């Protein structure tokens, strides 16, 4: 019974440590006392340990059914399987904030352990800024959202159960991955703020913060993809993206982080775009805080919104104002001191990356406008409005198409001046091939022609071939593929993977959006329906008993001609504790298509509303996104990130060889 108190105490302790971590190093920096600066790393590690203890004890509360904890009583149940009891820790507001804080602390630990190559001054300033963010979040938890609130002395005998929607492996992986990304952007933010404080803006700043940005971006990419995949099979009735405000809240920092990653490349290699890169680093984390605000305050209608609590919203909004306002003020005061040496030609890698940044920023701004518009109109006393998918599609799709058509040029160009026509000559053939590919694809796939598909397939082929051209050029420059893989900068390999991932993803998206076969039907036992090249027969319905639910389970036989291809079992579950109803779709996943069968509601007379779909190439969407994220992880294995600071010349050399 005492354990939750220890957990609570550990949380308070973490808050105190974070306070020290925020104050001591920066005090040491200004008074030039190395002893104070040196406290940063041990404090960061201690904060991590305290939060890990706190988090572990909350998880233990779930595992041991400690219903004296209000949070456990609200989100768990005696019948809940152990793995969902573990993930239920972050299944609601308070616990997900604890996960947020824990991950922030773990990034701090990682920075303090892996920053040996970074000067002491810089490292301690970075950790100090991270400490300040932690102070804000831990105060938010302790004052408005404490997960260790007890129900004593009359604790309930059983819990209210975890929201059935969250009783899914998706909850185990999606939030931690997403938070790793969201919170990971705080590292790039802290580096930017630290360099603004110290006034050292040379490219070493970019080299230090680049791997952290790329890792955070990779986690964010995978986290968003997992969320989309989860929505697809669990709540989406087969959709994979809904332009829900909370999805947008994760997409906006993703756009900015993607822009930041590319702009950091220019700053590191050429020393250009310095101010812009600093601004992007500040914006990326600010946007992820804004996302947290939108999700946690419940100001927008969303699947992710928990019960509204205005007090929480006000606190996060205040925190947001302090973080964004503070860092932008610092930027305004200091950025004029940043000098940007050198220039570049109009046709150069710098120009193409500038183009990339411009489009990504515009995309972020337009998604942000669409997401906040209902709030703005409401705040100005206007009507209640909502902005739906048609707006986002109208704005996003053309911008994405322009961005993607530019993707071929960047990797093929060189720094400073790329006016050698030989660099881009292969793109003429690529253009012809990709247009032909887009036009001929319906014949290969045997589906009807759609303009969107033709353009999308062309773009996917365009990017894929342009990436191959870059690979071939580098293979020729290095002599063989083996030497290339051993010697080339890993960031280049990561970029190839990520760009190919974009191509796969576009292909998946246009196929699903334009060629999904979709039918809502009334079906009873014995009925057969045609679905693509399959015949789907409903055999019957039976009632089955799950660990904490009852379900109507249908048996569907899928025939390919005369031959029985597969038998699937979609379910309609009713959870015992909450009596909430949930649909478990039956999905036969494949390389070229998914078969999707879901039960609607009983219609009387033994008939059910049934949804049948064939979704061509839907897995390519997530496959592409995972390839992008994986490319990010590959790129940080580059040797130069493991070397000490003194070898700073080596990276320029490697970059020269790559170009």
């Amino acid at each position, binding site marked *: 019974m005492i354990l939750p108190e220890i957990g609570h105490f550990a949380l308070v302790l973490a808050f105190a440590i974070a306070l020290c971590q925020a104050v001591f190093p920066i005090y040491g920096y200004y008074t030039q006392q190395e002893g104070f600066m040196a406290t940063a790393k041990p404090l960061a590690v201690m904060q991590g340990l305290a939060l890990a203890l706190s988090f572990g004890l909350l998880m233990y509360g779930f595992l041991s059914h400690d219903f004296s904890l209000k949070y456990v009583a609200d989100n768990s149940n005696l019948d809940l399987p152990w793995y969902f009891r573990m993930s239920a820790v972050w299944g609601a507001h308070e616990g997900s904030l604890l996960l947020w804080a824990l991950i922030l602390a773990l990034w701090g630990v990682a920075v303090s352990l892996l920053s040996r190559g970074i000067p002491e001054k810089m490292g301690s300033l970075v950790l100090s800024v991270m400490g300040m963010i932690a102070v804000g979040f831990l105060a938010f938890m302790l004052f408005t959202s404490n997960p260790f609130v007890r129900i004593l002395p009359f604790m309930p005998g059983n819990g209210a159960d975890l929201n059935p929607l969250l009783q899914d492996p998706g909850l185990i992986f999606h939030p931690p991955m997403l938070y790793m990304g969201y919170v990971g952007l705080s590292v790039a933010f802290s580096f930017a703020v630290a360099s603004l404080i110290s006034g050292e803006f040379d490219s070493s700043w970019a080299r230090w913060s680049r791997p952290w940005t790329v890792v955070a971006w990779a986690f964010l990419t995978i986290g968003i993809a997992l969320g989309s995949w989860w929505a697809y099979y669990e709540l989406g009735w087969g959709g994979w993206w809904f332009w829900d405000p909370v999805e947008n809240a994760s997409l906006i920092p993703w756009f900015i982080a993607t822009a930041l990653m590319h702009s950091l490349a220019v700053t590191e290699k050429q020393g250009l775009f310095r101010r812009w890169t600093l601004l992007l680093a500040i914006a990326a984390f600010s946007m992820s805080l804004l996302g947290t605000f939108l999700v946690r305050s419940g100001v927008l209608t969303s*699947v992710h919104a928990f019960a509204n609590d205005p007090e929480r919203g006000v606190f996060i909004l205040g925190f947001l104002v302090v973080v964004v306002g503070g860092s932008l003020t610092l930027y305004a005061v200091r950025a004029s001191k940043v000098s940007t040496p050198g220039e570049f030609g109009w046709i150069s890698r710098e120009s193409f990356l500038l183009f990339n940044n411009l489009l990504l920023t515009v995309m972020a701004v337009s998604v942000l406008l669409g997401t906040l518009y209902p709030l703005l109109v409401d705040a100005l006393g206007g009507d209640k409005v909502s902005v739906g998918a048609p707006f986002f599609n109208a704005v996003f799709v053309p911008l994405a198409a322009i961005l993607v058509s530019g993707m071929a040029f960047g990797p093929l160009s060189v720094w400073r001046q790329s006016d050698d026509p030989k660099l881009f000559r292969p793109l003429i053939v690529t253009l012809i091939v990709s247009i032909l590919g887009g036009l001929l694809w319906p014949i290969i796939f045997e589906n009807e022609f759609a303009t969107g598909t033709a353009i999308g397939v062309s773009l996917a082929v365009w990017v894929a071939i342009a990436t191959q051209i870059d690979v071939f050029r580098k293979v020729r420059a290095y002599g063989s593929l083996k030497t290339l893989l051993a010697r080339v900068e890993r960031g280049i390999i990561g970029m190839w993977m990520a760009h190919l991932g974009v191509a796969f993803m576009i292909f998946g998206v246009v196929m699903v959006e334009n060629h999904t076969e979709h039918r809502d039907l009334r079906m009873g036992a014995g009925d057969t329906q045609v679905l693509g090249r399959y015949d789907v027969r409903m055999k019957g319905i039976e009632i089955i008993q799950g660990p904490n639910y009852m379900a109507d389970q249908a048996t569907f036989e899928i025939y390919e001609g005369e031959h029985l291809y597969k038998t699937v079992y979609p379910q309609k579950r009713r959870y015992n504790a909450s009596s909430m109803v949930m649909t478990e779709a039956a999905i036969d996943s494949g390389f070229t298509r998914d078969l999707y069968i879901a039960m609607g509601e009983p219609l009387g007379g033994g008939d059910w509303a049934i949804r049948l779909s064939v979704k061509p190439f839907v897995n390519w969407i997530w496959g592409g996104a995972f390839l992008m994220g994986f490319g990010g992880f590959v790129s940080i294995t580059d040797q130069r990130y493991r070397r000490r600071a003194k070898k700073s010349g080596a990276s320029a050399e490697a970059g020269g060889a790559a170009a």
Partner: protein
Amino acid sequence: MNPKRKQRLLIILGLVAALGVAVGLVLYALSQNINLFFTPTQIADNQAPDSRIIRLGGMVAEGSVERDPESLEVSFEVTDFQNQVRVTYTGILPDLFREGQGVVVQGRVLNRQLQATEVLAKHDENYMPPEVTEALRQSGQLDKLKGMTQ
């Protein structure tokens, strides 16, 4: 002007122009694609336009759900405890759609009825869409909602 400054100026002008165009397009797209929200009372008073897709929020009236025995057609009434609006819909209703619960419906008004293209129910027992709360606040029946969720 030296070439570096000239380049920077051109880039900044380009950026501003591009952003301006983008924001303009976004605002235009917004004006075409926003969905206004109405309460059952407003629709009963004929305040909702019939040419646009709108949103309606309220509670599903008890005992009002009627199903067609042959197809997937269903109809129900959405109420703010002052006025009711009948909603017709063809398709599969969300899992958390239930009589006496909050709902947000998107569709077109025809003869003071709503032909729904989308029915959104909440995803969490304790969560009430802000639109529904707003509808009940306007009809002065918010206490009924509070009585129900507690």
